[in-house]
């Protein structure tokens, strides 16, 4: 096969250039479907691999950065706290594109505090929460997103109220909150591209069934249950920044949101009207759907233009890590002045 027959993206890379090592997750794991969509989205969005930092904590989901973009910089850190590592990397080098893979065990228990504060600081990152309701790597204990009444394989029933990462994120003012399902690749792919075009923290909760420990009929996070109860909110359309000029969107047919990189996101509402720019209405809709045993998917909330991490630190536009010594080491006259003040 010659290179001419393999499609390349705008920066001349093939999709193969975005893959990683072979997955070691269980065959059929929802996480692998997510990984495929990350690869697809990164390729379509022409991400320069060397500019990508892919970060994770500990758990099955946190293994996934190994499986995409082997030419990107990876950091498999500590349980639940890739958020801080990501914040540090973002502060050091604001030109990095951060993709953080986490799970419900990683993010909703020990990692809760860090996720919450990452959202508050609006750290630029696509935060993918691969949500299966169980701890897979320790062989199937409940996580904090397990629904009341959901059962473990051996019959234990969860009686404790779950935490919904999406309503939590909306409560905190996160500017990009989405939910998807690993069995809905088209929607997930579009959400990922939109998230990559977003400027701050983009949280995507992806229901991603654990085929080994949580795929039985009495689990609410099984493939069957997810397929039966997923309620897509919108038909999403995404016009990437490089096509934004050319593509005409039929006026009046869809709602449109412009993204910071010039991309455009369109929403064609399914069923009852839903405005993803209305945070309070979105929170209400998600809660009500949950009460009905359904989960809404799509972009639940979007608000562009909020200040991000670097606005709060009031730092220069350059990459801090590589600033020359001359600009970060004050001269002898400054030390002399400091000494005089202390005399």
């Amino acid at each position, binding site marked *: 096969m010659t290179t001419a027959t393999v499609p390349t993206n705008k920066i001349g890379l093939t999709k193969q250039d975005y893959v990683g090592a072979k997955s070691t997750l269980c065959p059929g794991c929802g996480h692998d479907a997510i990984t495929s969509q990350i690869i697809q989205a990164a390729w379509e969005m022409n991400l320069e691999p060397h500019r990508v930092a892919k970060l994770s904590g500990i758990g099955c989901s946190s293994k996934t950065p190994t499986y995409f973009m082997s030419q990107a*910089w990876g950091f498999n850190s*500590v349980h639940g706290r890739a958020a*801080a590592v990501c914040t*540090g990397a973002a502060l050091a080098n604001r030109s990095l594109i951060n993709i953080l893979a986490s799970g419900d065990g990683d993010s909703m228990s020990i990692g809760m505090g860090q996720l919450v504060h990452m959202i508050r600081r609006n750290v630029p990152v696509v935060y993918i929460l691969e949500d299966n309701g169980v701890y897979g790597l320790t062989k199937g204990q409940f996580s904090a997103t397990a629904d009341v009444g959901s059962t473990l394989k051996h019959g234990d029933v969860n009686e404790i109220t779950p935490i919904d990462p999406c309503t939590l994120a909306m409560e905190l003012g996160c500017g990009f909150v989405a939910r998807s399902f690993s069995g809905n690749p088209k929607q997930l792919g579009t959400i990922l591209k939109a998230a990559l075009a977003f400027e701050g923290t983009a949280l995507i909760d992806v229901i991603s069934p654990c085929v080994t420990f949580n795929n039985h009929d009495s689990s609410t996070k099984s493939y069957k249950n997810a397929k039966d109860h997923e309620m897509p909110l919108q038909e999403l359309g995404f016009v990437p920044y490089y096509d934004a000029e050319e593509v005409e969107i039929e006026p009046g047919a869809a709602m449109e949101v412009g993204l910071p990189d010039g991309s455009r996101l369109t929403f064609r509402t399914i069923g009852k009207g839903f405005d993803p720019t209305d945070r309070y209405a979105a929170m209400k809709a998600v809660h009500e759907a949950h009460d009905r045993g359904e989960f809404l998917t799509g972009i639940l909330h979007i608000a562009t233009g909020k200040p991000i991490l670097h606005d*709060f630190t009031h730092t220069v536009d350059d990459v*801090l890590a590589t600033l020359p010594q001359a600009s970060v080491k004050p001269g002898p006259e400054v030390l002399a002045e400091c000494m005089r003040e202390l005399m």
Partner: protein
Amino acid sequence: MLTQPATMEAVDGGTLVNDFSIEVATVNGSGSQTANIVLMRTIFQMGVPVSGKNLFPSNISGLPTWFQIRANHKGYKARKAGIDLMICMNPETAKDDVAKVRPGTLLIYDEPLKLDALRNDLAFCAVPFQKLVAAACPEPKLHKLVKNMIYVGVAAQMLGLDMDEVKAAIAKQLDGKQKAIDLNQGAVQAGHDWAAAEAPRQTRLKIVRDDKTKGQIIIDGNTACALGAMFAGVTVVAWYPITPSSSAVESLIDYAKVYRKDPATGKLNVAIVQMEDEIASAGVVVGAGWAGARAMTATSGPGISLMSEFIGLGYFAECPGVFLDVTRMGPSTGLPTRTSQGDVELCAKCSHGDTLHICLYPGTMEECFQFTYQAFDLAERYQTPVFVVSDLDLGMQNWASQPFAYPEGAFDRGKVLDEAQLKDIQDWGRYKDVDGDGVCLRTLPGTPGGKGAYFARGTGHNPYALYSEKPDEFLATVDRLKKKFLTARASVPEPLLTGPGVQRGILAYGSSDPAVAEARDLLTELHAKDTDYLRVRALPFTDAVEAFIASHDVVYVVEQNRDGQMTNLLREFFPQHATRMKKVLHYDSTAITAQTIVDQINAFEN
């Protein structure tokens, strides 16, 4: 109003010129810190070596606090147990404060406390503060603050302080706040004038102008560390407030606003972020260090405990980062406002599994500055967390110091490959020990060229940064990390050796230095015991440390902790010399005194 049961001379015939201790007992939150620093600074401005120690409570307002000022013409800076002038401003503690002083002590107190009834072997000076305050300050809400300046004025008159210097010290301390300067200068004058007319004459305690502080600065260790970080080009700071380290970052924030601002845009070239906790702070340091920033945090023992998992990650994934530990008294919450050297082992071996960290132990203000600066070079050279182990005594107390020398030269950014260098390397592996020193070649995220990317991880890995569970690869990694740690012996500060070359050695580190210096003089002068002295300044220990221990029959290791943590480390690295080392320990939460060291050494030898 005045009672003077005996003249000074009658109680104690000596006159103490430029060599005595003052203690001021006040209530915290009353503004007494400013007054006490004015008193200390005045003595300093008169050319007399002086040190000040604030024994403050973990509280914002209303609890007892004591400030000790020691003037000493020989330049001894350690805490001294005996008090020569006691100023009692706190009714709650006044009885105890009177009880604890030695016969002959001059006691200045608030008249209504009637302390003169408690003892008959002290020289009392009752001051009608309320009357003087009311006359000096028309605003009742400021009375509490002004009252403190009155005792400064009284003490100034009685000790012979130059009032022009007192007023200059006030102006310095209140930096440009003219209304406050006027008020406070008026108050000291009122105190002074009252004392000139009404206070008993005393000739025992005198400050006489000298020239021993010429050109010196007064600074605390946290400010010195902040300056070190600023000049080291720190670019990412993540922190969480904790006593006694907070002022290090707060000071850095103040300096950065002036000196680390991009002139063109007015934006900062250092990011300083207050995190949600110490865990997140350490995570930011690891992430920023991985991505190439000069990153640091400042905390105290409880913070280090929380950070330990991330510190282990930084060690194992080999990410540079500077961790300033301003040690306070543990365990647990312990005594947050009291000093200790109790984190020596915690820092040396922070995190689970086998870890060893480079630690620097500053013992002076200049070293707080230099070592913090140097820590960034070491962190990047050795791609690892580096600790600056300070303590509350260094960090928060005021110390006279020589001005700092400018750290000349280029930063050591370590073995970082750029795009061009990567091109020339055929078989790059992030954790390949190509130079045989344990220090591998590193790349920074964002480096173009498609060649330098790797996967940092806290899990077992091979030289190519790939996940590995192979025993031989794991062994190679942890052994290489040990080798890297030992390689750092070539770069860390050497210990400082002084002494005539005798068989009796003292080994100490950090804030014990002033007490050791004084103790050595006392041992020679009063007990005919000469000593050699080695001040250890870093882990890993260099050959000079071993040579010192090996060449002395006995080595007294002076520490401010219960378990002799430095001795434990020395015995681990030099087991063949284990029995030569004797532990001289002080851990009641106060700063160590020379007498403690003298007494314990004498006890060993009797």
